[in-house]
């Protein structure tokens, strides 16, 4: 009997470079093709509430980027040890702890902005984007891709918030980032600040318009029932 040694091909594990094309897509995709607000339709509530002016929107967006990225990272790191029955609770605990940390930091270093955001920072815990990404991605991915995915989705959310708040602040108060943009002379000629712009329905309308423009440019996103 001849001894045959069967050679099994040895798989050499090549670790993916940090910013490989696949990893870069994790950041760039949510900015357009898989935007959490306009394509995944998540996180609409805070998009309506804080986008009256640009400054709180930018701070809110930064807070969501931080919470999304780091909760994705933490959950991905511990994903193999979480008992199945308390999976959602563990995710929630991690998100809540991060949000509280962010809230405390805001109150310590940018107090007046934290007052403008008031209860909405706490509501990041209930933001569907965060839990959505944890369940859909972080629970099944390695830490670095999960972290990038969190940043990407946070930035996608932030992009929409900045656009909506720019429109609402411009037409609702004539300002951008607190600086008067609409000149005094316009008001004297009879121009009024649009009262609808500072109400939540305007945010829905602007998001709807963005979705319309996005799907016209990228027909692949149009859902066919």
């Amino acid at each position: 009997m001849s001894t045959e040694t069967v050679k099994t091909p040895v798989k050499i594990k090549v670790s993916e470079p940090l910013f490989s094309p696949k990893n870069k897509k994790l950041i760039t995709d949510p900015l357009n093709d898989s935007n959490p607000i306009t394509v995944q339709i998540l996180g609409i509530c805070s998009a309506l509430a804080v986008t009256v002016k640009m400054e709180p929107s930018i701070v809110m967006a930064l807070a969501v980027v931080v919470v999304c990225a780091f909760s994705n990272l933490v959950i991905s790191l511990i994903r193999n040890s979480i008992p199945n029955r308390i999976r959602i609770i563990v995710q929630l605990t991690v998100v809540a702890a991060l949000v509280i940390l962010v809230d405390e930091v805001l109150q310590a270093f940018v107090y007046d902005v934290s007052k403008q955001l008031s209860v909405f920072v706490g509501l990041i815990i209930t933001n569907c984007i965060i839990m959505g990404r944890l369940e859909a991605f972080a629970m099944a991915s390695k830490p670095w891709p999960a972290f990038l995915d969190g940043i990407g989705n946070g930035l996608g959310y932030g992009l929409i918030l900045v656009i909506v708040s720019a429109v609402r602040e411009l037409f609702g108060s004539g300002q951008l980032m607190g600086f008067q943009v609409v000149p005094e002379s316009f008001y004297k000629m009879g121009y009024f600040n649009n009262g609808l712009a500072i109400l939540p329905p305007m945010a829905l309308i602007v998001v709807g318009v963005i979705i319309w423009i996005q799907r016209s440019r990228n027909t692949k996103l149009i859902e066919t029932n």
Partner: protein
Amino acid sequence: MADKNSNKYTLIYASVLVVIVAVLLAFAAIQLGPYQEQNVKLEKMQDILSSIGVESEAKEAEKLFNEYSQEQIVLNNKGEVAKTDVKAFDIDLKKEQDKTKNGKDDERLFPMYIFNKDGEKYYIIPVRGKGLWGPIWGYVALEGDMNTVYGTSFDHKGETPGLGAEINTAEFQQQFVGKTIFDETGNFVSVRVIKGGASPNDLHGVDAISGGTVTSNGVTEMLQSTLKNYIPYFKSNSQLKDTPIANQ
């Protein structure tokens, strides 16, 4: 490694997670505490200044506060200067109001700020009350006659945005300018926030916020119950002989 879906593992996992999170948050709260307290202190100064119409940024708040401040006194419930080392600025209105609830009304302390602006004296009284979702508070600045409101500033913890939360807007606060807290015969009537709107020549009423009735009522109650504590002081210190209070 124990079966990660067993009861024992699940319980231990949950407990360890909770302990780690608790330690982390407690650590953060302690480290960030001083910065947050400083912010709150500066905001208090900004609010007091705002009640006499002086708007300020956080960085200049302390300097402006000390510039305009003439005297900060602490009164007891008889309207006399209280014998205490506690400084007016450090008095926590909530704790003082709790004293009344616990039957220790005679130990209560009432802070008052006497400010000087453009040569005129103003008496600024901190007020505190209950809104719909949480506490509301503010500062009422009275002119030298201790009767006419010169300005107000209000704030809240968590009133509904766009409704009760409007009490901290200039629009709501400006309404109180020129109102009086004593009527012509010298009776204390405070200023009421009236649902449905106050009549234009009502010296003791302002418009409530549509959709923010509970908060508006909270403001009425807050002004009534806090300002009445200062009546003894007003009576004994009113310098203008013909003011309603002096004639009471």
